[in-house]
């Protein structure tokens, strides 16, 4: 599951290089040359593959298990992170991590869906699929951000809101709707970054922001390509076609003017060089916040509304 099929030739080559390293140490100059020749070939293949990923391949990359997840970013660029828990009514939802912290010294509220990195943590975080309690915690955090005038950073990475009996009984729809409403009402700068998978309502519930960015190989979609294929094509086998037709890539969505920018990923994707991509995200958030901090609460709310109302209106 961790291996991407289009990466196969590259991974094979990388395997051979590793083997050569093992046998080769101390065996003279020829092997070193061979290694460097193979390495540059691997690099070239990687660059080629990643410069023309199809939407379906991007779906795979966006879902890659080794991709940095929400907590990787938070740990890297949020100081004094203080997670807050619970919706004060029913439960704590570990699928949506959120709390207070400092971004480049400035106190802020940060939240995002966390998918987990191994079996145990994936289960704990429910694979990043948020229940109503998570969206109600988000509402709590937005109220707090508004009250204490703390900018908000959200990191979006979810297959979608959790579909379960309990989630329905406790008002999943209402929780998502109210979360969106709370984002629209909060008079502080909000910056959202889709770092992996932006899965429909469960994603937009925390992505109603003043600046919305996507990582280069992230996806953001109204429905999973598989789901769309099974409904419209009547077969999940058409997921590739659906991925293309739905226009879910950062590049497509930037062209549709639905996002503000694309954050570059290292060659070979975010999962190959975590530090690099995390630094890029941090830099973009910093730029956006510097731009938004001078705005008054009223201006921010008005501009956010205007931004969303303009979606689809101009030049499409």
């Amino acid at each position, binding site marked *: 599951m961790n291996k991407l099929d289009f990466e196969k030739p590259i991974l094979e080559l990388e395997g051979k290089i590793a083997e050569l390293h093992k046998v080769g140490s101390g065996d003279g100059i020829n092997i070193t040359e061979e290694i460097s020749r193979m390495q540059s070939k691997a690099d070239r293949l990687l660059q080629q593959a990643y410069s023309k990923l199809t939407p379906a391949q991007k779906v795979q990359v966006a879902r890659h298990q080794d991709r940095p997840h929400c907590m990787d970013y938070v740990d890297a660029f949020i100081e004094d992170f203080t997670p807050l828990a619970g919706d004060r009514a029913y439960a704590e939802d570990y699928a949506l991590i959120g709390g207070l912290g400092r971004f480049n010294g400035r106190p802020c509220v940060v939240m995002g869906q966390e998918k987990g990195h191994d079996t145990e943590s994936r289960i704990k975080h429910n694979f990043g699929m948020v229940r109503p309690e998570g969206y109600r915690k988000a509402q709590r955090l937005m109220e707090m951000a508004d009250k204490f005038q703390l900018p908000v950073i959200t990191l979006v990475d979810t297959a979608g809101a959790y579909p379960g009996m309990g989630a329905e009984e406790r008002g999943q*729809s209402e929780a998502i709707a109210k979360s969106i409403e709370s984002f629209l009402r909060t008079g502080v700068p909000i910056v959202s970054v889709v770092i992996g998978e932006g899965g429909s309502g469960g994603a937009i519930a925390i992505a109603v922001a003043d600046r919305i960015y996507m990582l280069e190989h992230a996806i953001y979609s109204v429905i999973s390509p598989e789901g769309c294929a099974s409904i419209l094509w009547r077969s999940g086998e058409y997921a590739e076609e659906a991925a293309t037709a739905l226009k879910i890539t950062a590049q497509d969505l930037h062209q549709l003017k639905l996002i503000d920018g694309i954050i570059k990923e290292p060659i070979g994707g975010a999962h190959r060089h975590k530090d690099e991509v995390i630094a890029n995200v941090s830099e973009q958030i910093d730029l956006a916040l510097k731009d938004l901090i001078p705005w008054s609460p009223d201006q921010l709310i008005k501009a956010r509304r205007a931004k969303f109302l303009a979606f689809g209106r101009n030049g499409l």
Partner: protein
Amino acid sequence: MNWLSNIIRPRIRSLVEPKEVPDNLWHKCPSCEGMLFHRDLEESHNVCYHCNYHLRLTVKKRLALMFDEGKYENLPLPSVAHDPLKFKDRKKYADRIKESQAKTGLKEAITVAKGKIGGQPVVIAAFNFSFMGGSMGAGVGEAIVMAAEQAVKSKAAFIAIPASGGARMQEGMLSLVQMPRTIIAVEMVKEAGLPYIVLLTDPTTGGVSASFAMVGDVHLAEPGATIGFAGRRVIEETVRETLPDDFQTAEYLKEHGIVDIVVSRSELHETLSRLLNLLMGGESQSGGAKKGKKTDIAVSKSAQVKRKSSIQKEIRPDAPSSAKAVKQVEAAEKALENYRKAGASITEAPKKAASGKA
């Protein structure tokens, strides 16, 4: 989420709205299978007069039923870019729209109308489920924005009537962003101090349910309507939970605190008139008729009066038998007694410290 895959339950799937000019004089109720004569059905506003099952109703008939004296004005829909993605699956989206327009005689999956209810000015945005499953794309979202703006402009209440499987996939992310867009629309109405009432009809699911439909000042719902975020099949397949028969029905949502009132079509106009006049400073419409009368705070049953007792039995096979009901009551009374004995308002102390005092 497979928003659309599953909104039409198999037992309802066979059901289509009765044709305006029935070539078939008799209809079969999809719930109790009782035979329904078209003229009687017309008179009951598409409600089964055997079992109170609410069959789907065209928007035209619904609006006539809701507005005072059935009088209202249709507002022209705003124009939007159709098919911004040039979407094509097995069929072109552009062709699907044309087909739906031809089939329904409607421009989009939504109708916006203006009129009065209980003498109060009202703007209604009502979904046409027969138009691509009532799915919400830019056209529908923009119409909701326009309807809300109209309500604010004319100091009218805003009523939204969803009947939708969710977002319109063929518009991709442009349909998803209608969730915040329609909530912005509602925000404008709320800021103007005007009532925003949602009438949830069958079905209200997915991105429609998770946006403007769930932020009303008052949530009304039609009896039996399916309301929820994820579809029943998605939940059963992904989570492998066995779901109760009445899962995601209007009545179930009321029990879970999401819906205020489950209201029958026969009581819809009166209920809305009363609510709007209470919220908008109007006079009582009933002339005090409600005063001193016992209020039924449970799911309204008054519309079930016409129910034939012979049919009642077969349509409610899940209803507890009287012996079972008696047992349940006994158990509840026993639990209450135990609770009182234990000292109702005193939290049970940790086992170790509990030394006889309660």
